[in-house]
């Protein structure tokens, strides 16, 4: 062996050690620092000028989210994949994550992605869900967090309020940026040929969560004769938790919700109304939409819901009572419920929860009287007992049943 070669062999560990450190530095540079620069650029150029960050309360909620390991069941990162986009919405852009110290992307999904959770569920739903998830979603495996409450979902501690505030902030910045924000980002991206980047701008919906209620929207037309057995099964898994096994609004989750779930046994529904409600949910309430169920399943559910109504002999009503009802209605109710009972009165724009639409849902007299006497908690439907006489109450309770439009 020549002396040089021997020396080289002996010194090779020096070369090797330098190389080892170089590998490591290279990995940090290539996969950490360089992508960081690209992302920082992207954030700077594509972000709206003053994106909304988190409030102090939301920030505290974020800490709770981190501490409870929510990120180990929920990602906050919608990938540039059609499967992700179909479920959750537009892929996450770099600038949307600019306030996340530390990021909460997650690498496991036992529950759904939450990057666009904001405005997907109502506040009462969140409280009830955090307090006891299975009272709303019977088959959920999400942990319950009663320690964030004072013994009931109606008594959230500050921690629960903070956490729900945080959940409601998820995806908000991009939503508020609006079409102008999207246009700005798209121009700034300068990436017309980057197919992947373009996916973020061409998603059909920014938030595609199938549970997100819509204030208005089309709904599929359901076949009137859905499969009853299937419907009952679906009902037991998805609805009974709130609406009760027999539709009497007495499920385990009912008490915590404001408004309470509808008493399905006390209403007649048109199939169209059920199609609309299942497809769009009831915005502002805990009634989510069920757009992830195929249309046959919705039809089956509609059939099952229809089956809860116990047809009672409603007494025939004297004409003068109906006249009184009409007068009372016109004077007191029409501005909200609309002249034709469609829930589209002139004041609707100011209401958080749309007034009942009597054309598609006919309450029994008892049900109406209950609403008139007690009001509908959690909505602007106030009690009328002080303002209307007993006779007027009964009269209008009969009267509103007349709006129902059953189609053959």
């Amino acid at each position, binding site marked *: *062996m020549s002396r040089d070669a021997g020396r080289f062999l002996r010194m090779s*560990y020096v070369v090797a050690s330098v*190389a*080892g450190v170089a*590998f*490591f530095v*290279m*990995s*940090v540079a*290539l*996969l*950490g620092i*360089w*992508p*960081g620069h690209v*992302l920082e650029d992207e*954030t700077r150029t594509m972000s709206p000028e003053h994106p909304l960050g988190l409030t102090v309360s939301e920030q505290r909620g974020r800490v709770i*989210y*981190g*501490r*409870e*390991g*929510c*990120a*180990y069941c929920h990602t906050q*990162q919608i*990938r*540039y994949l059609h499967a*992700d986009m179909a*479920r959750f919405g537009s892929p*996450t852009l*770099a600038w*949307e*994550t600019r306030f*996340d*110290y*530390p*990021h*909460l*992307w997650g*690498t*496991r*999904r*036992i*529950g759904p992605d939450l990057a666009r959770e904001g405005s997907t569920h109502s506040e009462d739903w969140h409280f009830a869900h955090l307090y*006891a*998830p299975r009272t709303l*979603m019977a*088959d*959920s*495996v*999400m*942990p*319950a*967090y009663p*320690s964030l409450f004072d013994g009931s979902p109606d008594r959230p501690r500050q921690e629960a309020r903070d956490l729900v505030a945080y959940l409601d902030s998820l995806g908000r910045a991009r939503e508020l940026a609006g079409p102008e924000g999207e246009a700005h980002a798209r121009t700034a991206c300068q990436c017309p040929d980057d197919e*992947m980047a373009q996916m973020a701008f061409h998603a059909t919906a920014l938030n595609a969560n199938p549970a997100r209620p819509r204030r208005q929207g089309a709904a599929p037309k359901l076949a009137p004769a859905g499969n009853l057995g299937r419907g009952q099964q679906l009902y037991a898994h998805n609805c009974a938790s709130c609406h009760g096994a027999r539709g009497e609004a007495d499920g385990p989750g009912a008490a915590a919700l404001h408004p309470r779930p509808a008493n399905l046994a006390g209403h007649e529904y048109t199939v169209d109304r059920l199609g609309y409600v299942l497809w769009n949910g009831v915005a502002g309430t805990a009634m989510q939409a069920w757009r*992830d*169920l*195929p249309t046959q399943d919705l039809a089956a559910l509609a059939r099952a819901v229809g089956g809860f109504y116990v047809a009672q002999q409603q007494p025939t009503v004297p004409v003068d009572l109906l006249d009184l009802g009409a007068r009372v209605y016109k004077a007191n109710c029409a501005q909200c419920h609309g002249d034709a009972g469609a829930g589209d009165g002139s004041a609707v724009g100011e209401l958080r929860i749309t007034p009942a639409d009597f054309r598609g849902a006919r309450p029994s007299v008892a049900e109406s009287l209950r609403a008139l006497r007690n009001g509908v908690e959690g909505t602007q439907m106030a009690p009328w007992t002080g303002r209307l006489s007993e006779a007027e109450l009964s009269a209008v309770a009969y009267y509103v049943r007349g709006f129902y439009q059953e189609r053959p």
Partner: protein
Amino acid sequence: MSQNVSPAATPAVETRLVYAHGLAAIVTLLISVAFGILASIELLVPDLAGNPAWLSWGRLRYDHTQGIMLGWLGNAFFAFLYHAVPLLTGRPVTSARLGQWIFGLWNFAVVAPGWVLVLAGFSQPLEWAEFPMVVDVFVVIALALAIIQFLPPFFRRGLEDLYVSSWYVIGGLVFTLLAYPMGNFVPELVPGARGAAFSGLWIHDAVGLFVTPLALAIIYYVIPAATRRPIFSHFLSMLGFWLLFFLYPLNGTHHYIYSVIPMSAQIGAITASALLGVDVIIVVANLLLSLRGSGVFSRDVALRFAAMSTIFYLVVSIQGSVQAQMSVNQAVHFSDWVIGHSHLAMLGFATFAAAGGLAHVWQRIPWARYNARALDWSYWLLFAGVILMVTDLTVAGLVEARLWQSAAPWLDSVRAARPYWLIRTGSAIPIAAGFIALLLGLTTGPKGAGLQSVEQTIGLEPVREIAPRLAPAASEAS
């Protein structure tokens, strides 16, 4: 060459530190496994025990993985190092006093308080970095002390012609210290997607620069020591080593494929992941060729653990290379498939290596109790448990992936996973039993029975003779 390792010097192995870390390893292992079992049960019975905050799923999940990595593997690696470093270098570790400090810091300033703080609600939501930052500071201090403890013997011996285990030890300790802050501190300072890029680095470095090198150090050590034959090829060992340290850190971004992180970084990581599979084939071929004809299964249980660890290493690495590919990743990412993968890595590969290492060093502590039958049971129970759990989770992942690609409601994937989660919890029975057997194997039985068992299986030689055998054979090195 072999005069570099003086065969005459009886290296002073701090057997008490070996013993202390070994026992701490198994105790923390049992606790970590209990966290894991509880978390798995909570997926079946979510409203367990009235839902106290400190028992909630997320916190158990944090403590499970941190306990496995730092408590179990960390302690087991230290136990092995106290035995192997003096034998590899022919020189004692820096100081027994320092060893007591490291032991105390690691277990009473890192693992125990880390667990308690997480249960009390102080943690950080970063993968493989869940202990709060105060604890991270002590991890860094302890790692720095470990470098002071274990590396000087190598320098005093001189770095020429080091056996590959030595390189893995040096590389593992140094690069873990460098990489640790990347996953534990940087994402707190760098937001969102940018921070995630660093998290990705650490998620893979935790496995690639801490667990893998030290587990391979054990395997590379135990195989020649127990078969009493040199490793098949020192050249392949070193090739494997360098490729590993080149490729592992470049894998990080494969945890965020199809994310907003620049595509070229993603593709780089995916390519590195594929190449890593090739490298692992080299490493494993070398190890298996070294085992050829040695009658692994009839022999020493430590060797059997190490051999099985090698096979798991091959399978998990090939699986990793495959699941990093975009077409596979888009389907199985986020699913139980990945949980199966990480258990194959940590419970299959790393745990088998660590258990093999512990059994091996225990045999060589003259005063330690040793129960060969219990260890035999431990091996087979763990083997059955790992196969059951990983198969089950892999299938679960495929089922979830199929449902996620379809239009089915989200909860359908949760409903479909239930039976698999039940089996997974069931797999905890052989696994927990295996670990209890491991504990019994190392704490019951007659004192010194380890040496007897070595005698019966591979024939007793003075322990110090093991060292020179590990240096490259003179013929190969020149």
